[in-house]
């Protein structure tokens, strides 16, 4: 029974625990056993927090015995990208260098809030070094592997998050998204992923990459779980200076509202170029299902992508300059040399990029006067092979590592909320994602559209075919 539960949703696990069909300890034990059995193939987890998970599960079972409210995620296992602070565990952020740091004395706020909702932390997840990555590869811990084809990339930088959820190790994982690091692995691993509005969810206790662009968000196999995790993490936190003072309005109650009355259009221009047939066909499928016939242009998207690219280089280079000076040989070379280049760029470029950010935001908000939701590819192609350095898009050979996010980057640049929804094609074992984009602070609309697609069977996020039948 527990194995079947682990393939299902966090909501179903919570219902089973609350109803006494299974104990939280039984769920935690089964989840830990499955992680041990499958992680060798997937490279998803870098640390397990087994003792903590069992203690939390026991506390939930004791609370149930006392008749207390257990929370909407009662007993549901989750795991976090290893840039989130976990008390007592060095926050490696995908690096060798950070393993020398003192373990944090407190959890990241996002972890504390998920646990307050009843979820059970099972460990920390592999990621691209210092989050500067779209591949899911890591020179220190090895690559995270795509559960749907172990020779393929998960995408990154939240690669372990993608592998853990698609591999059935946990129903929910936390990631971060600076330029696409939730949406790219969601697309390549076939998951629902939510990058909320910039400033919505607290980043306190998450190791930074580009403060101007960093977001926290969940990956899950159902829209309901995505919404529950998001709802649990809402709320003000003075430890994140970029968090906006917005009301904590849950989105779960509105998932059933459907798409009637929503004005939905697909993005053309930049978002219809540099993509292979599978990416464009996925958007076609979603647009047809939603009866979205209109095509609109987000003028300036290419420049927006360039601006985000430069801000990331400059802020990343500045963040790591001292480590580049003193620990250069301990970096992943692919990451190090992008950071070094970033540290050398003119300040005028970064300032111009930030000026353009405000201009592009204003132009995009004007577009949202006539439309509620926009559609675009999440990645230009399905998962490349692990180790693949280049691909050809629009006739031009490009580096894979920076360019898997070329459709995600212009949107996070101005902090728009986006849900990545996974699509499957008959005869293809690899999925590909579509971005569902809303105006700032309208996560509810993007999630409503994703929920409609899920109910209609257009988008789905199944656990990958069994990696080990016994777990």
């Amino acid at each position: 029974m527990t194995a079947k539960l682990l393939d299902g949703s966090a909501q179903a696990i919570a219902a089973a625990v609350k109803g006494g069909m299974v104990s939280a300890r039984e769920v935690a034990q089964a989840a830990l056993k499955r992680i041990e059995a499958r992680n060798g193939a997937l490279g998803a987890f870098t640390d397990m927090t087994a003792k903590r998970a069992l203690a939390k599960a026991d506390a939930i079972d004791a609370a149930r015995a006392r008749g207390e409210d257990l929370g909407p995620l009662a007993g549901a296992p989750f795991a976090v990208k290893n840039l989130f602070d976990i008390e007592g565990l060095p926050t490696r952020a995908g690096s060798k260098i950070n393993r020398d740091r003192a373990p944090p004395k407190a959890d990241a706020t996002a972890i504390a809030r998920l646990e307050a909702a009843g979820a059970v932390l099972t460990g920390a997840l592999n990621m691209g070094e210092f989050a500067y990555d779209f591949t899911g590869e890591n020179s220190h811990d090895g690559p995270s592997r795509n559960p749907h084809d172990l020779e393929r990339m998960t995408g990154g930088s939240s690669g372990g998050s993608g592998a853990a959820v698609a591999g059935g190790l946990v129903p929910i994982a936390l990631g971060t998204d600076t330029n696409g690091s939730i949406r790219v692995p969601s697309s390549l691993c076939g998951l629902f992923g939510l990058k909320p509005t910039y400033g919505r969810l607290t980043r306190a206790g998450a190791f930074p990459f580009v403060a101007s662009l960093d977001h926290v968000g969940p990956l899950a196999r159902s829209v309901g779980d995505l919404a529950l995790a998001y709802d649990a993490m809402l709320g003000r936190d003075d430890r994140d200076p970029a968090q906006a003072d917005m009301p904590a309005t849950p989105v779960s109650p509105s998932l059933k509202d459907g798409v009637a009355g929503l004005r939905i259009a697909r993005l053309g221009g930049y978002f219809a170029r540099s993509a292979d047939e599978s990416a464009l066909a996925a958007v076609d499928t979603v647009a047809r299902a939603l009866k979205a016939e209109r095509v609109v242009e987000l003028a300036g998207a290419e420049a927006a992508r360039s601006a985000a690219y430069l801000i990331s280089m400059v802020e990343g280079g500045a963040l790591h300059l001292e480590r580049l000076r003193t620990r250069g040989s301990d970096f992943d070379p692919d990451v190090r040399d992008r950071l070094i280049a970033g540290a050398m760029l003119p300040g005028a470029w970064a300032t111009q990029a930030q000026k353009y950010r405000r201009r592009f935001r204003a132009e995009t908000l004007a577009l949202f006067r006539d439309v509620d939701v926009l559609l675009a590819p999440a990645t230009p192609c399905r998962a490349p092979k692990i180790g693949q350095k280049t691909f050809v898009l629009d006739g031009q050979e490009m580096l894979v590592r920076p360019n898997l996010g070329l459709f995600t980057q212009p949107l996070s640049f101005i902090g728009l909320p986006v849900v990545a929804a996974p699509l499957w094609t008959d005869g293809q074992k690899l999925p590909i994602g579509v971005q569902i984009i809303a105006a700032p602070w309208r996560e509810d609309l993007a999630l409503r559209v994703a929920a409609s697609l899920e109910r209609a069977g257009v988008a789905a996020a199944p656990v990958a075919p069994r990696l080990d039948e016994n777990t």
Partner: protein
Amino acid sequence: MRDQALDDPARFVQIDGAMSSASFDPEALIDAMCPLLGLDLTPESRARTALHLRIAAQQAEKLFSIALDDADEPAPVFKA
């Protein structure tokens, strides 16, 4: 391991804009900046850094192709 695919940065760089990345010499920038930043690059690291500087120059060309006003305010505004 040296990656031959990365040894020719020009393969990944299109130079077609008005800003002068065509005449940009990343080697000269690296020579000037390393002492200033306190960095000492290996030949492999230097080659990759030059590649990423060229790509950055290409991105800057695209960014600067859009005219901005003096009055355009940068996005992050400090609130006292």
